[in-house]
């Protein structure tokens, strides 16, 4: 009986406590930098698209909300012809970011993407692609990958040694 009265008293004391609610549109909660929100496609330091259209993100996605079509430019550099994320299905798990070998796809601390029409939640490549590097700076997949594409031959990448001439290796 006394414990009941004490409970009521303690609850009444909460009248004088500070309220924990954040009044959202006026005040915003500070989001941690690793918050998993709106997805972007980033560019490498030279301004080229990082995405190499490897489809790994689309495969990793548990709800199958990423769709893309790979294509190549004249130098053999792969890029997505179109890239589509259906945010009405995305669960912001971040698996796509983990799967991506090139840091292209990244989740950002932004969740304010409400729409009145569901179709507007389907983001196309031009909605996703940003002009900067996103969270990971200074990474350029083609500069470290031992792949010959236009303007860069084998062995010219960062930390690359010149390729071994197979004929000189003959005994």
């Amino acid at each position, binding site marked *: 009986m006394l414990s*009941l009265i004490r*409970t*009521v008293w*303690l*609850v*009444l004391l*909460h*009248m004088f*406590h*500070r*309220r*924990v*609610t954040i*009044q959202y549109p006026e005040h915003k909660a500070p989001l941690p930098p690793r918050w998993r929100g709106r997805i972007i496609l980033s560019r490498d330091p030279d301004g080229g698209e990082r995405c190499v259209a490897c489809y790994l993100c689309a495969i990793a996605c548990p709800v199958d909300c990423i769709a893309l079509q790979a294509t190549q430019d004249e130098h053999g550099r792969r890029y997505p012809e179109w890239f589509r994320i259906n945010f009405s299905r995305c669960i912001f798990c971040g698996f796509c970011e983990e799967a991506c070998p090139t840091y292209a796809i990244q989740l950002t601390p932004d969740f304010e993407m409400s729409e009145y029409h569901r179709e507007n939640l389907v983001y196309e490549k031009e909605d996703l692609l940003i002009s900067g590097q996103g969270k990971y700076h200074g990474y350029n997949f083609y500069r470290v990958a031992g792949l010959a594409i236009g303007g860069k031959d084998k062995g010219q990448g960062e930390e690359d040694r010149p390729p071994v001439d197979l004929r000189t290796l003959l005994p």
Partner: protein
Amino acid sequence: MHSVGISLLIVFVVLACILGVASGLIWLERRLLALWQDRYGPNRVGPFGLLQVLADIIKILMKEDWIPPFADKPVFVIAPAITVITTLLSFSVIVFAPGITVVDLGIGVLLFLAMSSLGVYSLVLAGWSSDNKYSLLGGLRAAAQMLSYELFVGLSLMGVVMLAGSFRIADIVEAQRGLWFCGPQFVGFVIFFIAGLAETHRLPLDLPEADNELVAGYHSEYSGMKFGLFFLGEYIGITLISAMIATFFFGGWLGPVLPGLLWFIIKTFFFICLFIALRAALPRPRYDQLMSVSWKWILPLALLNLLVTGAILVSRTT
């Protein structure tokens, strides 16, 4: 003719006030619960979120009013109306201030008791006609809980009636001019409060609803405005019990300086807030606990209270 006009005016003013208060309570309850849980509650629609009620009402009126095909249709439709009608009828005997009452019945207390007994039918019939096991369980609990606590509402009031020597509510209030009955009838007050809580099936004792065991208890199958009526009945019930506590134990309109009506409103409001505070603070007891407390503790206590009050009164007169 003149007096008929005044009576009609009182009827309509009382009706409008009660319906207004009952819907305002939805807002009040949400704000107060939020206050005690360190939140804000509805504060967006209109000043302090007051228009939230309006938005809720519009929403609930727009909702599809669905009657399950397996339900017993006529009973299903009538059940929600009963709770609202009986609680509203009980208000007819409340004396808000000297002269401000709908009917000045000589048996006001009995009418109140009768109406709150009839209110049980609403819950039982709703649970029965829904033809759903959770609703039925809720209805069963409602029947047992409200019938047993009904008894204590009556028994705890008998002490008051003895002291006042009248069933007329105006007389009961007048009899408290020297000392409010919450002093000499403290046990009666506590019992009436607990029983009132059970009668209105408010949160610590909301076993007929028990959201986390019975979906929504007796009104699981209700939607739209029928569901709204149950809520309206519940909030009118809170107002009624608070008004009754103020009348029977805290001297109704009696009080210094301020006009009587204001005193009545202040006291009623205080008890409404207390009801909400209990909801914020206390957990729901188990069903068997509820029943055993009622029959093993409250019943003997109420009878003892009655006996002692009677004995004191008799010894004083002889």
